[in-house]
């Protein structure tokens, strides 16, 4: 009667694999990779044909003052004279070998070009994510409730902060960027208005970009925290006499982590989006700028390379947040 542990195994060990966890992870990863490749192929295919609709690469290559003869010559040189489907198949073969050809406007391998720009954009997004999480979590936890006695009793200050967060979400990050530039770079001259090369030039763009995500994240945390506060869990903890501080740090925060990670993970792509505009406003030559310019110049190789890299980054971010979930929530560790 006393030792029930063996009588009712908590979790039946899986019977049908040698190292099932590793195998499952490998399998899952494999499926994900296949999906990723499939998606990228689909994407570049769409891009490929869109790009052909949009502009004749030979014309772009030739430049504005070229003659039709030049264009014809370029067409031959770059293999743009063969039927579209052949061009597409060639492109696809190259793509699967991770070769995008040379950038049409810059005449260097498009992948090198995009990869060179990727670092800046990634750094920008990572710093913004750090700011985002660092700012949104405490605010979200704070406005998420949890007073001395029962959960959910609102205090005036909390209401005010909550309102401010709602308002900040309405203030678009690019407006913040413009204001930050005006105040800190131009009026006060304490931080540079352009670039992203020195540490002090990271500050304004990162804050602007983080602004895109932080209010939402704060509200997700708020709502998750509120859920935890009103859950049986906190009810129990209260019944055991735990102090609100303990409950907040050991019950609410850890249980908010999963939605937090999930949101911060998806927000990374939001940040990649926002980076395009932030780069524009701060004169940062990142991947976003490259994509914008590539579209304008119908530079398909650069576009495809850039888009593929973004796909990979997103994939990596998903993988990382997958791991983070598992660290944050032991319930997820078991069934891979």
């Amino acid at each position, binding site marked *: 009667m006393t030792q029930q542990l063996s009588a009712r195994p908590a979790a039946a060990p899986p019977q049908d694999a040698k190292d099932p966890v590793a195998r499952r992870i490998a399998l899952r990863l494999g499926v994900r990779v296949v999906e990723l490749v499939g998606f990228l192929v689909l994407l570049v295919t769409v891009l490929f044909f869109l790009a052909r609709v949009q502009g004749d690469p030979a*014309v*772009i290559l030739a430049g504005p003052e070229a003659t039709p003869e030049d264009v014809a010559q370029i067409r031959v040189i770059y293999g743009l004279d063969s039927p579209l489907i052949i061009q597409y198949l060639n492109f696809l073969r190259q793509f699967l070998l991770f070769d995008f050809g040379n950038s049409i406007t810059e005449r260097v391998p498009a992948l090198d070009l995009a990869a060179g720009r990727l670092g800046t954009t990634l750094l920008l997004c990572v710093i913004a994510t750090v700011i985002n999480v660092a700012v949104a979590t405490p605010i979200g936890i704070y406005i998420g409730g949890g007073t001395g006695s029962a959960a959910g009793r609102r205090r005036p200050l909390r209401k005010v902060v909550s309102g401010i967060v709602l308002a900040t979400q309405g203030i678009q990050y690019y407006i913040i960027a413009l204001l930050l*530039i005006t105040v800190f770079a131009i009026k006060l001259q304490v931080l540079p208005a*352009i670039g992203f090369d020195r540490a002090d030039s990271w500050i304004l763009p990162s804050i602007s970009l983080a602004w895109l995500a932080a209010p939402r994240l704060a509200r997700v945390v708020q709502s998750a925290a509120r859920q935890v506060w009103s859950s049986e869990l906190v009810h129990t903890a209260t019944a055991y006499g735990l102090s609100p501080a303990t409950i907040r740090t050991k019950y609410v925060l850890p249980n908010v982590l999963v939605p937090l990670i999930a949101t911060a993970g998806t927000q990374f792509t939001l940040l990649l989006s926002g980076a395009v505009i932030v780069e524009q406003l701060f004169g940062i*030559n990142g991947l976003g700028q490259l994509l914008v310019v590539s579209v304008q110049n119908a530079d398909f190789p650069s576009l495809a390379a850039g888009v593929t890299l973004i796909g990979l980054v997103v994939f990596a971010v998903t993988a990382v947040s997958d791991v983070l979930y598992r660290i944050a929530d032991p319930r997820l560790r078991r069934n891979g």
Partner: protein
Amino acid sequence: ACGGSSTSSDPSAASSGKPDEAKNAAATLRVVVPSISQFLGQPFQAASPPRAESTSAIFDALTRVDNTGTPVPWLAKSWNRVNDTTWQFSLRTDVKFSNGEPVDADAVVATVTTLLGAAGTGSVAKLYNPTVSGATKVDAATVNITSSKPDGVLPQEIAALYIVPPKYLAEVGMDGFAKAPIGTGPYTVTSISSTEIAMKANPTSWRKPIIGNLQIKQVADQTARTNAILSNAADINTLLDLDQIDNVKAKNFTVFPLKNQAVFLLQFIASTGGSKPLDNPLVRQAINYAVDKDAVIKSVFQGLTTVASQGTAPGTTGHDDGLQPYPYDQAKAKDLLTQAGYPNGFELTGVYSLGAFAGDKDFLAQAQSDLAKVGIKLTMKQETTANMTSYLLKGQWPADMFTTAYLTAPTQDATKAYSFNSCLRKPGSWCDQTQADLISKALTQTVGTPERAETLKALAKAIHDNPPALFFNNGLKVIAYSSGVAGYTIDSSTNTSWETVYFK
């Protein structure tokens, strides 16, 4: 070393005292530009700005075209026309490339030969000098450049033909050269990317600079560029937004309006004698009368430039100062439209790509609102640069007009702009046979001769009277730099004399 004909943008620079050499040698001059050449350090493609900043820091050509449109000696000391198709240049003998190779007839011949070959596809040799057919060495310091047709403006045309070290080029090839260019200019490249070029002083240059380092950085957004200098993240902004002139001036920056020998306009897609409204010269004149361009010049351009009267700007060879711009006269416009048979106006469509020239948005808005008053409903549609280029080359437009610029770079000769926008280019968008004949004639006549001047005068009048476009303004490029910078000069071909710049 300076050709003596460049515009000094800073009159005080000449009179001020000697620069502090040590300080300058350690300093870096930071320049923000709207875009860096797509071809990195390879100077043979696209001769117009923005790449002029970096090419004039790294390279030199045989000639330069001064602010009056006249070719002046540069790597060539002098030249003369040997016959209809041959020009002979005698070279300076004191100039070396930064890698030690000498600048001599062999280098010139090698450069020309390379560009005429397969490696030169799309290069100046084929695009701007379609007539150049070869170069031959006469002696070490003398070289003959030949053209396939009689070419009177060849000394101007080769102002874009930068001379490069032949051995090095052969060694690294065109692509390698683009990544590590070598020339005779005041600076040598230490690193180059499509967004930033870092350079250091070339102590052996015949145009030895004062400032130790030069950094050219691409900042596409015009506001960001302004912010860059305002926040002291850069020293020079090579293209300032017109609306910022007052503002940066107030903050003690030097603002330099450079008349850059271009004319901005809304090109008609038409040909004299056709049946569309725009094919009628009266209609085209009416449109020019109807729009109050002066209002835009006064308020947006702050009077820094003038309304264009013809397809070339003052200072260009072939510009007729006697011609007056079409005045703003709506009554006259209405009159002309009635004469032409359109008393109630008609609808027009136009395409534009934004940012093609300063104030374009304002001109377009003004044109739309003024044309509406004479009954012409103008609808404008924005297109990407890529699309515009594509339409241009195919000669097929989804519209009746498009925004463009008549560029004369690098020759600063009227024929350059006119021939590109005439029956001579096929497929083109504008054709008037009288004008085309005059252009052909001027192209063969030797530059500087009175006969040629006469032809050009007739051409200018023909363009004015039978306008191929709604003329907007004579080109203006506003440069701003911090008050600490001195000796900064740039000519109307956008050649910058980097060797004279220093920090006060």
